């Protein structure tokens, strides 16, 4: 039995979605994948008995769109010079990156069981020393935007047109270095740089606006010379549109501020700061997986319905 406890039937369905050309994947396809990512996250953090479940659940829809629709990469040649680069700045949410990369075929999903364990390349915070395909090492907050900007400058100097994507958290926008980098990216008109922020208003000590209010984050980036969009981070089509916009806009760096809900998809975790950095216990993990299975089966029903409609139409 696969470690995610998925049925053979489900695995067949997922496989068929993964076999499609990215451009042909539907919203429903991506929702199904996002759900699978969420369950992988819960299981990985549960087995690790440590780590951060909340952020990854909130990011699963964005990651599904990134890895299965937006990012250019070839899993058979993962370090190809032509690939888009996807960096993670707030490394503590790496469970969602690992879960997405496993699903995308960078490594077997079963390996997620080694997350945070001795000898694993799935370190508690991402490390290229153990896993070069991760693109960057992070964990200490506020450093990813500088790395991504330098990388974008370097690619431009080499006359490459690849895009550099980098995920940030709202909490780490409290780090001054984030703004040093924001200033530099605009100064050098790094239009190959696409940042996105997980704007869930939660950090370890509580709600961001209570710990240290970021105020109008969109206006702040705009004032630094960035092109800014605010989008719903759980609306697959809105996420896709935002990334498409970011790819097309020229002349300055772009940032998408995704309004997200920490713990999305698991009722008792949603918008609760306690789930920023605590793993679920056995019964909580069971409850979380049960909820997610239920959502999955609902999506699956819709999927079957949609396929009927398509075949009826054809």
């Amino acid at each position: 039995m696969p470690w995610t406890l998925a049925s053979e039937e489900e695995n067949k369905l997922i496989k068929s979605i993964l076999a499609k050309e990215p451009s042909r994947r539907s919203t429903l396809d991506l929702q199904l994948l996002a759900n699978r990512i969420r369950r992988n996250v819960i299981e990985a953090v549960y087995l690790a008995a440590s780590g951060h479940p909340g952020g990854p659940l909130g990011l699963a829809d964005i990651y599904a769109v990134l890895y299965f629709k937006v990012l250019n990469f070839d899993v058979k040649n993962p370090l190809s010079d032509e690939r888009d680069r996807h960096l993670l700045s707030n490394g503590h949410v790496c469970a969602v990156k690992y879960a997405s990369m496993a699903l995308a075929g960078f490594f077997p999903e079963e390996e997620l069981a080694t997350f945070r364990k001795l000898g694993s390349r799935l370190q508690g915070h991402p490390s290229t020393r153990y896993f070069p395909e991760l693109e960057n090492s992070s964990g200490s907050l506020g450093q990813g935007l500088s790395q991504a900007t330098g990388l974008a400058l370097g690619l431009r100097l080499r006359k490459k047109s690849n895009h550099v994507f980098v995920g940030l958290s709202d909490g780490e926008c409290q780090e001054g270095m984030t703004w040093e980098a924001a200033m530099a990216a605009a100064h050098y008109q790094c239009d190959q740089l696409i940042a996105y922020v997980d704007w869930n208003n939660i950090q370890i000590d509580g709600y961001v606006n209570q710990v240290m209010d970021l105020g109008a984050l969109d206006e702040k980036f705009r004032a630094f010379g960035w092109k800014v969009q605010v989008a719903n981070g759980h609306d697959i089509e809105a996420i896709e549109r935002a990334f498409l916009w970011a790819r097309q806009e020229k002349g300055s760096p772009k940032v998408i501020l995704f309004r997200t809900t920490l713990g999305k998809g698991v009722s008792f975790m949603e918008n609760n700061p306690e789930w920023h950095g605590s793993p679920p216990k056995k019964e909580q993990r069971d409850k979380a997986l049960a909820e997610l299975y239920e959502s999955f089966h609902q999506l699956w029903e819709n999927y079957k319905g949609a396929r009927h409609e398509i075949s009826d139409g054809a």
Partner: protein
Amino acid sequence: MRVLQINFEKLGGEKKATRDGYGDALVELGAKYEKLVVLDADLSGSTKTNKFAKKFPERFFNFGVAEQNLVGQAAGLAMAGFTPFASSFAIFLTGRAWEIVRNTVVYPQLNVKLAATHAGITLGEDGASHQIIEDIALMRVIPGMKVVVPADYWQAYHAVEKVFLENGPVYLRLGRPAIPVVYPPQYEFCFGESELLKTGQDYLFVACGVMVYEALKAALLLEKQKNVSIAVLNMATIKPLDEEGLLEASQKAKAIFTFEEHSTYGGLGGAVSEFFAQKKPMPVYRFGLKDVFGQSGSADELMAYYRLKGEQLAEDIASLL
């Protein structure tokens, strides 16, 4: 270890700054290596990267007064396949940006070179806020970080290319003032290899940076005053430490003396002590800043105030022999 012949008669006749050796070398190397990019944080006139900037503007990036970002950007440029040299004053590059150096550069083993100028008390008049005497310790302690401290203009000049060619992160420590030239213009720097500039049997002096000249002077004075023979080793690469060179140069030595324009904790003296404590226990006397901050004054005055001049070293060491 290599044995080099130094002309003691000419010693100290000419003075040039190690930061100029760095700046001049960058201009030469820029034409030779397309992968070389240079980054600065609003101090390009002082760090001497401005010469490179003028000649290769497309490969020079100024990040303003933001040293953490400077180091992070260097990491990104290394990810893109370049070999960046990031420069600022040593206090900012190793102090303010330390955690970024550790986590974003050295931990992922990115090919970033941190070339810091204005290290130590010879920075002079700006005072203790700018005179870092902890940087060698700060860099040396990071797993896998390499540390190079050239002794004069020519060693700095020749070290830059070897630092460029060395794979992985390297810290290059440079100074502000013109200091005595020790090396001839035609000289080959070998990464990780110490150089015996003066042979001797009874005692071993190990020095780096501007203190190589002062240690040589002290050794020559002491040999004149006392019936002793002193070897002087330039340990320009402090990490990895040339342990074989230390053993070889200290074969009959009764004690080791270390000299650095740095705290006596954690720098060259620390590295040499750690080595001898385990391999060949014997007294190691460390000369440098003895757990004190510097202050304003000219480089020369400060060297004298902290008793780091050759004559003073000879005086202070005489009673220990």
